[in-house]
């Protein structure tokens, strides 16, 4: 692994946009640099399910035309980005990592968040690999292949937004739109060493995305620095009444406040479950972040193990229900790793599902109580470093356990109650590991501000990786 030195590959999304808007760099030149990199590296990494070269070149040319005419293409002018393959792209079938969906008609419109990105001048480069129907943490997809981790191509990029994360880490794009139901942004952010934002449930509209678990699905973002994450988050915010879960809230901008003093923030470390399930790398990352943010106190959420179990059960049940018709008629066409869990989920008793929903509400109240004393809570984003592709077990709390069901141990309880979380890649480990900065609902700004502070302090950071 080496660091790149070409200036074009070192700039941030914000810097690209500033250069393009100022006429110092063409969007087409930026795009061609990314397309060349994709052509060279994606056969190895397998981040993309489809590279939309013609569309991207047309979009970049349109941006350049606006600049030449003296008009402003927008705050993301010329920034190349990708979307997880569960976002609609007009004229294309949204596979969600499956072959089952290939029989669906092509999408008539781009997903809403994609539209907001392109309206701001960003250039869609392609769709990105994922676990089938977003049900997994490793992006080892039986139909579209495994995405490889740019830091070590023998290892998983994490999932389910694995293609999106690996593409950002390797500099194939400068940001990605992903989704997080149980940790699917935070886990790949951790394994690939980049920043990820899972906003509050209901903050970003899911309009035009393929669902997994309706009341757990969070659209979100992946980028290589906290400032880009914040800038893009501000652009894609906004209520949409066609999404039943979208909160009717005005846009609450974060970027302007990123550099505000954050030493007044009250930060605590999540202990109990979140410490017990972490490995030494996760604990070291937490120690570094805690020291930088002045966190000395520990908070224990006694219901965390039950919340994780409830999230696990609800996810299987909801997924089994969502795909019930296909499971009846076309079970053999699923990825085997997904199929067995969906089939089992479809058999779960209603009593268990209702119990899980009741536990969910109790755990939410428990977590909210912790935020009376603290603004932010810290926890590792994964119980391990990126496992090898094909690795069937990981070691958690001294026990060897199946990898696939347990990689999300530390993320599941938190997305289960919809809290906003920024995953920050912490420097110093042999392979990347991220820490979750967790805020109370609707306070994404606080988590982003802390992430930016960690970056300035040199505790967190991401650079483009040459596999």
């Amino acid at each position, binding site marked *: 692994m080496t660091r790149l030195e070409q200036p074009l590959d070192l700039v941030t999304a914000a810097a690209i946009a500033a250069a393009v808007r100022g006429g110092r760099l063409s969007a087409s030149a930026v795009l061609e640099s990314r397309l060349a990199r994709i052509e060279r590296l994606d056969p190895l990494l397998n981040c993309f399910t489809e590279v939309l070269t013609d569309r991207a070149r047309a979009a970049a040319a349109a941006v350049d035309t606006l600049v030449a005419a003296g008009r402003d293409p927008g705050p993301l002018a010329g920034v190349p980005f990708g979307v997880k393959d569960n976002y609609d792209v007009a004229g294309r079938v949204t596979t969600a990592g499956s072959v089952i969906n290939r029989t669906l008609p092509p999408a008539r419109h781009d997903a809403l968040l994609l539209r907001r990105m392109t309206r701001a001048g960003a250039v869609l480069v392609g769709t990105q690999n994922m676990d089938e129907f977003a049900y997994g943490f490793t992006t080892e997809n039986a139909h579209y292949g495994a995405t490889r981790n740019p830091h070590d191509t023998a290892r998983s990029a994490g999932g389910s937004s694995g293609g999106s994360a690996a593409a950002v880490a390797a500099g194939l794009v400068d940001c990605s739109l992903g989704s997080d139901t149980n940790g699917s942004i935070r886990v790949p952010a951790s394994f690939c060493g980049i920043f990820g934002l899972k906003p509050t449930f209901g903050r970003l509209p899911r309009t035009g995305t393929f669902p997994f678990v309706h009341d757990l699905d969070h659209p979100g973002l992946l980028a290589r620095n906290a400032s880009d994450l914040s800038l893009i988050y501000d652009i894609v915010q906004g209520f949409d009444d066609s999404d039943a879960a979208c909160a009717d809230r005005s846009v609450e901008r974060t970027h302007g406040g990123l550099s505000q003093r954050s030493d007044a923030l009250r930060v605590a470390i999540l202990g109990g479950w979140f410490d017990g399930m972490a490995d030494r790398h996760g604990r070291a990352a937490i120690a570094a972040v805690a020291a930088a943010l002045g966190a000395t106190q520990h908070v224990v959420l006694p219901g965390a193990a*039950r919340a994780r179990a409830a999230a696990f059960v609800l996810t299987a049940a909801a997924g089994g229900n969502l795909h019930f018709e296909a499971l*009846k008629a076309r079970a053999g066409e699923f990825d085997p790793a997904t199929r*067995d869990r969906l089939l*089992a989920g479809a*058999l779960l008793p209603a009593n268990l599902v209702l*119990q899980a929903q009741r536990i969910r509400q*109790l755990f939410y109240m428990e977590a909210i109580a912790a935020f009376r004393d603290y603004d932010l809570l810290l926890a590792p984003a994964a119980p391990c470093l990126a496992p090898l592709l094909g690795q069937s077990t990981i070691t958690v709390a001294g026990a060897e356990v199946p990898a696939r069901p347990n990689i999300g141990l530390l993320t599941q309880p938190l997305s289960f109650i919809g809290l906003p979380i920024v995953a920050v890649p912490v420097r110093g480990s042999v392979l990347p590991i991220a820490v979750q900065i967790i805020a109370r609902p609707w306070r994404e700004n606080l988590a982003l501000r802390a992430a930016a502070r960690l970056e300035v302090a040199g505790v967190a950071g991401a650079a483009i990786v040459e596999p």
Partner: protein
Amino acid sequence: MTNEDIICLAATAGLTIDPAFMSGVAATMTILLEQGALLMETPLPAQAEPAAAFQP
């Protein structure tokens, strides 16, 4: 959980499990029910409402 249990549950749900998938489904079901046991051993107050329409 035995294969017969799975077949019976599936029939109730209106599903037929291909014998080739049975071992994977049974293994997953075992994990799910282990997690479920953790939920069901928790006595909840009557006032504990389900978060069916979840809004933070």
